[in-house]
């Protein structure tokens, strides 16, 4: 069970196989709850969102396509969407986006620690205004208009910041369409 791939555990979750389901939850609960807590900033809401994330993963396990990305990113995307829907209802104002990168070293039990550090380092290298815009967009789902209103800058300026940040990150992290 402990050496099974993420894909195999997800398939087990989809069929409600007890050991696979438990192993899947335990493998990813830290990342999922960490993301929902980062977005929502409150333990109870974060747990509710994390729980809903695993429920949706179970419901849509058959829809996962390995060609489109890793199980972890698929799952975190679900978590992000669940949490953003909740934050819009419960917490109209966003948390401090710099808190995302405040931890010196993400604590990770799995093998993606090195990748997480690469992404965090790349984000830190962005100019402050670009980093703020991209973090607000990625983790809080804020539109360019909303970011502009929050920061008192024209929407066109925010769009440029987001675009510049994404292009820099694409080059830095060497994301390819393989």
């Amino acid at each position, binding site marked *: 069970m402990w050496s099974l791939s993420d894909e195999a555990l997800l398939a087990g979750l989809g069929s409600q196989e*007890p050991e696979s389901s438990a192993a899947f939850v335990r493998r990813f609960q830290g990342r999922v709850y960490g993301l929902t807590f980062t977005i929502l900033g409150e333990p109870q809401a974060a*747990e509710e969102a994390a729980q809903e994330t695993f429920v949706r993963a179970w419901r849509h396990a058959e829809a996962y396509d390995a060609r489109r990305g890793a199980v972890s990113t698929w799952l975190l995307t679900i978590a992000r969407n669940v949490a953003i829907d909740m934050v819009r209802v419960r917490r109209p104002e966003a948390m401090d986006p710099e808190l995302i990168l405040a931890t010196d070293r993400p604590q990770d039990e799995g093998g993606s620690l090195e990748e997480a550090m690469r*992404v965090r380092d790349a984000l830190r290298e962005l100019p402050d205004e670009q980093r703020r815009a*991209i973090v607000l967009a990625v983790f809080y789902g804020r539109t360019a208009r909303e970011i502009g209103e929050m920061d008192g800058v024209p929407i066109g300026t925010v769009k440029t910041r987001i675009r510049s940040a994404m292009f820099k990150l694409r080059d830095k992290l060497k994301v390819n369409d393989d």
Partner: protein
Amino acid sequence: MTEHSCEDVRALAPEVTLGIASGEERAALLGHIATCEPCRGFVRELSTLSDELLIAAPVHEPPVGFETRVLESIGVDARIIRSLRSRLMPLAAAALIAALLAGSGVWFGTRSDRRIGELYRQTLATANGEYFSAAKLEGSGGDEVGVVFAYQGEPSWLFVVLREGSGTYTVTAETRSGRTVAVGDAAFDDEKRGWGTDVMVDVHDITTVQLVGGGETLVGVVHEK
């Protein structure tokens, strides 16, 4: 319908792939990439990037019992898992402990550190283990009430022996970085003095194991901080 150039679409792509674009912008992009392979590839790259940025978020263990609540919400009976673990872990733990104790006569007989070390290595090699440790389990008054065994291997596991008392305890492990990891719920009675489970934490990283229940807290110091 206005035709959008590749340059226009590449300008739209970041917001669309981040999920923050308007419906019109999204429709414009999708309409273009339906017939433009280079832009389709570019959008795929940014989509991948948008998803991968999420792993930058810090990792936090959820509250104790989260796993059980999730499994119950998707219709998996968590008791099945606890039953499987409670049956399998004592067997695995007992096998290792028996292997260690089997050599104890030789250990004391020779009183050779080198011999003890060799027996320890042979035992670990049996199951490709890396490390095995034991710590006294103490009550709030400092009295010794049991033992915590910690094994680093595939899988890694913790096994708790409670010499007296009964009840259900919530078991957690604290790591060197100060993180508290939920381990599981342990039940003891006069006929069941041992409980174990696999853990997804590096055993080397565990400082203490705590059992909380019945108004008391039992602590085993596995490694000094």
